[in-house]
């Protein structure tokens, strides 16, 4: 598909560095799917859908800075929804979110409770101010919090909150790769799913730029089971724009 014109209708400041951009178009995604967001004249970048009609973005580079310059009524080009989202399992699920990694997990929490699935969330960030979607997770069930500086919840990493993990029917995780690797090493592989981030070019499974071993993050993912990731390069290295290996 060519990019569709997505007009910004509302911008919400979630944290000092993270904003949600709402569009007048709904993309009707499955939780965990993403879009390619084209900031015209600058770049096109992969972004998780945090609502049916919104992306939640951390300002980290030239493309996101350009996006942060835009206001209501401005527009960007969107291709999507793309990729494979979370596979929802019945029972009682655990969500583990680090920083802006909460973006694809919040709609999963909401969809899950609407389907009668119980949800517990472990939510982590650097500081209290950087916690994303705390209220949305609280509406869905229990929430345990960890912050790096101890300004809210446990003083430490969200991975330290993992407890009793065998009791959950499924564990869903998104956050910085080092954090996800720690989770991968701690939880039952067959009952866990991880949403990955990689440098994505085509977004439609052709070019191979985003591959983790032979897996295309844009098409076979971005969500993969722990079993698939366990013996892969995930958590060890990623590829840069040239295709060179870079240590995680």
């Amino acid at each position: 598909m060519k990019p569709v014109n997505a007009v910004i209708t509302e911008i919400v400041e979630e944290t000092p560095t993270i904003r949600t951009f709402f569009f007048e178009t709904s993309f009707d995604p499955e939780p965990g799917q993403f879009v390619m967001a084209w900031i015209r004249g600058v770049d096109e970048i992969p972004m998780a859908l945090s609502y049916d009609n919104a992306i939640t973005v951390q300002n980290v580079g030239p493309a996101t800075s350009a996006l942060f310059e835009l206001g209501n009524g401005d527009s960007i080009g969107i291709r999507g929804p793309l990729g494979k989202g979370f596979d929802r399992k019945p029972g009682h699920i655990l969500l583990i979110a680090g920083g802006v990694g909460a973006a694809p997990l919040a709609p999963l929490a909401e969809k899950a409770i609407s389907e009668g699935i119980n949800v517990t969330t472990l939510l982590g960030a650097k500081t209290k101010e950087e916690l994303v979607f705390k209220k949305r997770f609280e509406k869905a069930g229990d929430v345990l919090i960890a912050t790096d500086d101890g300004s809210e919840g446990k003083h430490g990493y969200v991975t330290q909150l993992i407890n009793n993990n065998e009791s959950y029917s499924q564990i869903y995780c998104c956050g910085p790769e080092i954090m996800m690797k720690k989770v991968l090493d701690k939880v039952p592989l067959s009952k866990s799913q991880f949403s990955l981030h990689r440098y994505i070019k085509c977004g439609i499974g052709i070019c191979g730029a985003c591959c983790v071993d032979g897996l295309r993050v844009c098409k076979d993912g971005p969500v993969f089971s722990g079993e698939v990731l366990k013996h892969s390069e995930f958590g060890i290295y990623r590829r840069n724009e040239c295709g060179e290996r870079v240590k995680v």
Partner: protein
Amino acid sequence: MLSLKLTGISLKNPIMLAAGIMGTTGGSMKRIAQAGAGALVTKSIGLEPKSGHSNPSMVEVDCGYLNAMGLPNPSYKNFQHEIDTAKEAGVPVIASIFGGCALDFSEIAGAIHADAFELNVSCPHAHGYGAEIGTDPALVEDITSMVKNTVDVPVWVKLTPNVTNIKSIGLAAQNGGADAVVAINTVRAMAIDIESGYPILGNKFGGLSGRAIKPVAVKCVYDLYEALDIPVIGVGGISDWKDAVEFIMAGAQAVEIGSAIGNNINIFKEISTGMEAFLSEKEWTLDDIYGMGHQI
């Protein structure tokens, strides 16, 4: 039933992975081999690491795909281990390489170990590379002969369709000692976002692949088969076994698959199975249909 010798290389089937698709990492190439490809052509590799054009670098249009990746690659100095990983899958690996002059090509080819080389003198959107070289018969001949003098494995030359007469470029490759030509690379194209007036690709223009270019590619293969003594390898818009048969009838000894992998990574096995069933039913061999379109 589908096995063949192509420029001296034994292939279990004539359905190969095209350059630029799933060819940057050893792991991705291995997956394509496991999916049934007869051989793998790597992403085009150059002298230095290159990040390529800014995104969007590939979009689907009504009739195919538009891309301007910009030859992103980790450089030949960081690539041998990817080829070696791909080789573990047990099918031949052909290194696609690009450069700005004959010396670049021979430096890269001399440093890489692969079963064959495919010279990319046909990328339509990289300034100073690709088609800017591949439209000049003298340069193509010069580059081909320099690489031939450097390596002792087969050398294929991938041609651009963006020329008045593709036969003259094919002949130049043949005169330079090429073991085969590969036709075609993408067709120069662009798309504009009508909401804003911006060209969609980061590079503004690029190359068209997919269904739309298949008849263009079939005609190029047909013409090259008539003009050349060396084998022609067909590529451009193949998305099922019927397309592959059509290319072979036009005069391709083997084919390469690119864009169609996006929606169907099992396409290699499906094409092999479909071709085998077709040949059995017709009581034909691969040799029987090779160039059949010229005998009628």
